[in-house]
């Protein structure tokens, strides 16, 4: 388990628990009792820490390496998943996962960014930063879903679209623009969940849904706190201040009506109990799909467009 800076007290307590477990019974000490006492303490501390995470801390949690990633969700929630590849133009971009499978009895198209979990897979998936071909693949798959009447589920987790010369040459901006346009055009339900990091254009390219949900400690922002700090504060060290100012937490975005729903995370964040977190995400998606599939395709499209058209008329005073 990887511990974040502000989780140090937890790391210490859990270290003690580990030590106790390795110690045999004997010298007058009731180990089981002590372990239970410490575990209660861990829970109490977790509750304290996680109930008042700062936006910067939430950013850390959202990027936690043990947090469940896109492929984890697919493996846990989608039966008979058939991954589909390629933009039919230039390349297969493994930063974007896409395919059809059965989610709670329903055929769905699942699309999302995958960050990878170790060095090898991170390189393979380009750390979840998609190139134009990734967005073009997403668009192709959304159009396929539209053709066959399959609801689309997007799982967003990216630091942003990949900044590179080749990506620019091949029209990164155009690819993102078309992906957003396609999200807004399809006549099937589109449910999006920000499961970790919602990094700017690279995120909204997949997140223009009928319903947009965020996990409790995920973030969604026009720019990374670091990027914002280096531009506006002229110092990357002011990321903490930038994180505050950007209003990038799920709670802020719900207040701004940019997202529809917050999915609560298990105590101590999704990384402490990935299975629970993934099940809760699945329940939320299922609940919305259940309602959305009953809507007329034209209505689905119109409402999605109306929803985004109405955004940005009001903010927080």
């Amino acid at each position, binding site marked *: 388990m990887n511990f974040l800076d502000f989780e140090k007290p937890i790391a210490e307590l859990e270290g003690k628990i580990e030590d106790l477990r390795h110690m045999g019974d004997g010298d007058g000490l009731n180990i089981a009792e002590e372990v239970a006492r410490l575990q209660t303490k861990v829970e109490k501390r977790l509750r304290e820490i996680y109930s008042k995470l700062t936006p910067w801390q939430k950013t850390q949690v959202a990027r936690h390496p043990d947090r469940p990633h896109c492929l984890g969700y697919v493996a846990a929630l989608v039966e008979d998943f058939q991954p589909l590849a390629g933009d039919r133009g230039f390349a297969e971009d493994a930063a974007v996962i896409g395919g059809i499978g059965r989610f709670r009895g329903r055929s769905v198209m699942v699309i999302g960014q995958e960050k990878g979990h170790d060095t090898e897979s991170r390189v393979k998936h380009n750390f979840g930063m998609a190139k134009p071909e990734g967005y073009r693949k997403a668009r192709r798959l959304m159009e396929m879903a539209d053709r066959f009447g399959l609801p689309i589920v997007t799982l967003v987790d990216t630091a942003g679209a990949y900044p590179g010369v080749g990506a620019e040459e091949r029209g990164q901006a155009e690819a993102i623009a078309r992906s957003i346009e396609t999200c807004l055009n399809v006549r099937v339900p589109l449910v999006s969940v920000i499961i970790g990091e919602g990094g700017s254009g690279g995120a909204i390219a997949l997140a223009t849904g009928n319903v947009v949900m965020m996990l409790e400690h995920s973030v969604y922002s026009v720019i990374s706190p670091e990027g914002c700090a280096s531009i506006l504060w002229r110092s990357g060290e002011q990321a903490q201040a930038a994180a505050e100012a950007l209003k990038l937490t799920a709670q802020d975005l719900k207040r701004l*009506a940019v997202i529809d729903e917050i999915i609560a995370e298990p105590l101590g964040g999704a990384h402490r109990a990935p299975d629970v977190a993934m099940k809760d995400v699945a329940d939320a998606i299922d609940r919305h799909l259940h309602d959305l599939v009953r809507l007329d395709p034209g209505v689905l499209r119109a409402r999605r467009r109306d929803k985004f058209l109405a955004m940005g008329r*009001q903010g927080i005073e």
Partner: protein
Amino acid sequence: MNWLTNFVRPKIQQLVRPKEVPDNLWHKCPECGHMIFHRELEKNMRVCTHCGHHMRLPVKQRLEMLFDDGAYKRIELPKVTEDPLRFRDVKKYADRIKDARSKTGEHDAMVVAHGTMGGNAVVIAAFDFSFMGGSMGMAVGEALNAAAELSVAQDAPLIVVPASGGARMQEGILSLMQMARTTVAVDKVKEKGLPYIVLLTDPTTGGVTASFAMLGDIHVAEPGAVIGFAGARVIENTIRETLPEGFQRAEYLRDHGMVDMVVPRHELRARLSALIDLLRNRGPVGEVVPLHRNGAYSDVEQRLKDAHEAAKPAPSPEPGA
């Protein structure tokens, strides 16, 4: 006439050929050189038991391995004008056709059949590579069109299995026109919202690739299959460079965004069945509720107003709702 050279002489050669040369009983894998006993090779669907190389599969076996229990019905295909240009190179096209027919027992290079895969009705149009290299002329165009119409009539997905060198030169410009014609044909299937899947096998090249074979909803390829437009030698001679490793192979095309998945022959039936099942049996949809656009899910304006009110005190982080 050629009767003597083409028919009698090979027969004689076969009779006098020394017996130790493995002829029909043993097959040499073109990839690794391994000798495989023919029965073993057939049992393994002509996949090398040593290196996994996928050899070309005769069309009958192709249909058997795809349809449930190997059971299918072929349809009779419409006849077309034969040898429209009265073409002859070193040999008359009419004779080439005749030879191909007697060699393969097929009328032309495409076979159309219907049956089920994973219990779902499917139409398959498969090329016979042994019929003039699976080349596409008017008969193939006609056959694919018939397959498309059958697919629409049966409300069944269409799977096309190319194994073709491209257009049939002996039909000249009329074979080129099959690229447009087959495109119209497969679009009939797509317009009906029926899945159109292409199973790319070795080889898929030239005008076949540049038309219906690249227009599938989903592109599945067999491992190592050569898939491309121009021939590798033509390209090499043009650019005067050595081609990259794995050029125009199925895996190369997947990495370059043209193919969804490379699937070993033994898994093809299961994978294709799963794809068709997901696209055809979508699961619970329920009654469509005729609501106008201002219902649930479009309460954004109201939520924005609420947000405006609620947000007046300084926002503080809170656990999710």
